[in-house]
């Protein structure tokens, strides 16, 4: 990036693109050309900055000025103030909600302060569609080093020494997996990158592929060299068109530069990568199901062993790793195992990327050292709970994980601690919930997902989860009994013990963890037929408190079914037979005049 004096980085992740990031780029280019600044200032579309809450985000380097919630119309002002008058445009700077001061530099934003970016090192810094920018940041140096200076055994040893564990959920030591696959004798082996990312509400892997696709290509090639494979496959969801598009560009560029294909860097090592598309099935994230899907069949898991390392794609030894696992590899080679070892905790080295979402102020993509506490993530980085509400629970591990509560907030996050606390790391979805979320409904929500996604191969998962769901439905409708609560627990344990694959074995976790941590909420639904969070429709009624109502007509104007009547400045009234209990009036009322009874 040497020829230009300044760069304007515009986030081109899916979230920001949805808010017209492309138009912003166009406008910048036009504006700069008009002012004859286009020789000095370059506009770059990058991958996700992580701060999705305040998107679209624009960053100016070298001064690191960080503009948030930029619209295409703001571009003229930014160019005028920042580049012509040489001062930051105050209006669009990030405002620290704690003291209302505006923050100029990205480095001083709380959201970024506690983060350590390894897997996301290039996301938001480089143009993912330009291999030169990746190379300028040490790209493909790790591959060069492995191929020319190390034997496969030495390279595997390095990965083992780093202590890197799989980021796809299980946390299996990556170096060990590579070693096992290497030791299996076969002339044909495969490297597979698992980019299925089925966890709803998680977008880590997608953001890495969108923001830094070359790091995955480089790592897969290194893996191929280590295990003795010359073919790589990326299994990616068809719902990720942008990631697919960028990956394809990156693959072509890598081939052009001789970094993929025959005789890479003149070392005689051959490696090529193909893309395979998923088609919307969560269970295909499970490695045996994924392999069947790549072979063109229904993605039904099969019993392990044999593990894919021994018999995988087309019956050949196959090393399956997650996107984020791969993204760590080049850095480990460049900076050494010892450096990596210093980050994180004893048993979980390095960092973890989380998709922080739900009821926090700063929704986004974050990366923190293992051992960071949930409190730091939710309150420091996430900026606390939206709208001044109370924190209630945080769900990690997606449909396989559990809900953690206030008492777990100071737990350092790593693989083992999360399991001890009754949840799991999973792939990195982290959903924060506040006092308005009904935990019974949350459990039901996850089960509904499992029901949809169960492949149906084994009975406990196919039928057991259905029965669990029905029990939860009964409870949320106020028809449950105390006996049902015991049944829930018993059935959950049976499903866990008897299902074939990881999906069924973990699907009751949301039920069990909410039963453990929020038993009183279940009891309220059963005994007093109330939903403490006010979410279960069958159990609630919206009413206007005539004394609090100022007659501002806001509820009247927003009610989608016209169930609210009343004159201006007079108390309003909700017609219960028309009310569909959508809660809009409750959300909109500024005077807390609507109550849930």
């Amino acid at each position: 990036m040497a020829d230009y004096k300044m760069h304007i980085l515009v986030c081109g992740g899916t979230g920001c693109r949805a808010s017209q990031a492309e138009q912003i780029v166009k406008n910048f280019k036009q504006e700069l050309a008009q002012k004859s600044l286009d020789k000095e200032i370059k506009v770059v579309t990058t991958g996700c900055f992580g701060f999705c809450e305040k998107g679209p985000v624009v960053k100016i380097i070298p001064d690191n000025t960080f503009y948030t919630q930029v619209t295409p119309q703001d571009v003229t002002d930014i160019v005028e103030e920042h580049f012509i008058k040489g001062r930051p445009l105050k209006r669009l700077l990030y405002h620290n909600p704690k003291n209302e001061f505006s923050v100029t530099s990205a480095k001083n934003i709380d959201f970024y302060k506690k983060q350590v970016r390894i897997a996301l090192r290039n996301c938001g810094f480089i143009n993912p569609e330009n291999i030169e920018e990746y190379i300028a940041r040490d790209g493909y140096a790790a591959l060069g080093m492995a191929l020319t200076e190390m034997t496969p055994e030495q390279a595997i040893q390095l990965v083992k020494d780093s202590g890197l564990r799989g980021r796809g959920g299980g946390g299996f030591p990556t170096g060990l997996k590579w070693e096992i696959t290497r030791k299996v004798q076969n002339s044909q082996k495969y490297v597979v990158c698992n980019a299925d990312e089925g966890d709803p509400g998680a977008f880590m892997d997608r953001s890495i592929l969108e923001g830094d696709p070359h790091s995955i290509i480089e790592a897969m090639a290194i893996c191929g060299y280590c295990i003795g494979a010359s073919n790589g496959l990326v299994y990616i969801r068809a719902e990720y068109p942008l990631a697919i598009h960028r990956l394809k560009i990156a693959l072509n560029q890598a081939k052009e530069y001789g970094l993929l294909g025959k005789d890479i860097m003149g070392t005689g090592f051959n490696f090529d990568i193909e893309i395979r598309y998923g088609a919307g099935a969560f269970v295909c994230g499970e490695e045996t199901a994924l392999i069947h899907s790549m072979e063109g069949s229904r993605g039904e898991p099969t019993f392990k062993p044999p593990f894919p390392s021994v018999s995988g794609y087309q019956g050949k030894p196959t090393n399956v790793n997650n996107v984020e696992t791969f993204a760590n590899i080049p850095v480990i080679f460049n900076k050494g195992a010892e450096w990596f070892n210093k980050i994180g905790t004893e048993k979980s080295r390095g960092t973890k990327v989380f998709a922080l979402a739900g009821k926090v102020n700063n929704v986004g993509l974050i990366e923190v050292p293992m051992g960071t506490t949930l409190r730091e993530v939710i309150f420091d980085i996430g900026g606390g709970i939206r709208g001044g509400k109370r924190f209630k629970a945080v769900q990690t591990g997606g449909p396989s994980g559990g809900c953690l509560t206030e008492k777990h907030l100071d737990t350092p996050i790593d693989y083992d601690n999360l399991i001890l606390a009754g949840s799991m790391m999973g792939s990195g979805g982290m959903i924060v919930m506040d006092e308005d979320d009904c935990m019974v409904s949350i459990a039901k929500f996850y089960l509904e997902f499992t029901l949809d996604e169960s492949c149906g191969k084994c009975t406990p998962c196919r039928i057991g989860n259905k029965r669990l769901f029905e029990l939860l439905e009964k409870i949320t409708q106020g028809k449950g009994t105390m006996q049902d609560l015991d049944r829930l627990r018993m059935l959950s344990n049976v499903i866990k013990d008897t299902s074939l694959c990881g999906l069924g074995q973990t699907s009751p976790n949301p039920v069990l963890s909410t039963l453990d941590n929020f038993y009183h909420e279940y009891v309220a639904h059963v005994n007093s037929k109330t939903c403490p969070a006010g979410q279960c429709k069958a159990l609630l009624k919206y009413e206007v408190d005539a004394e609090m109502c100022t007659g501002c007509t806001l509820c009247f104007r927003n009610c989608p079914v016209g169930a609210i009547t009343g004159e201006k400045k007079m108390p309003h009234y909700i017609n219960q037979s028309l009310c569909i209990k959508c809660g809009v009036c409750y959300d909109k009322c500024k005077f807390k005049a609507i109550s849930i009874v």
Partner: protein
Amino acid sequence: MPKIKLSEYATTTIKEVCASFNHNEGELINVLHQVQHKLGYLPAEVQELVAIELNIPVAKVYGVVTFYSFFTMLPQGENPISVCMGTACYVRGAEQVLDEFRRQLKIDVGETSADGKFSLNALRCVGACGLAPVVMVGDRVHGRVSPSDVKKILAECKDGCLTHN
């Protein structure tokens, strides 16, 4: 269901796609992706022809089409509406938004309105969780949607916002 007769175009498209994958049965999913992309949906008749072209039982094709939620056997509406029901959107009220679409369109999830204008689907995380709850109409993403926005979104579609976007 009454049989439909495949158009000349559909038949040649399917044959071409299968040929481009060398009639290799291992490429079934890729074949179906491309056929659906070109024809819009995968009714039984399309599946039968794919089976013949790849020389596999229709049951295998049907098994795959019904296994993966990305494949659909029903034609989609002019304005395919997808409400994200990923967890981030769910906790920010996606269910109420979905209910409102159901109510206004008088169709359920997975259905297409009688006039063929709208179809309604629930999907899992489009990755714009920062904008939750998220609704997609075709390729267009609407963020921070509340039930009271639903009417406006539908009206926009009727005005043909899709054509100039």
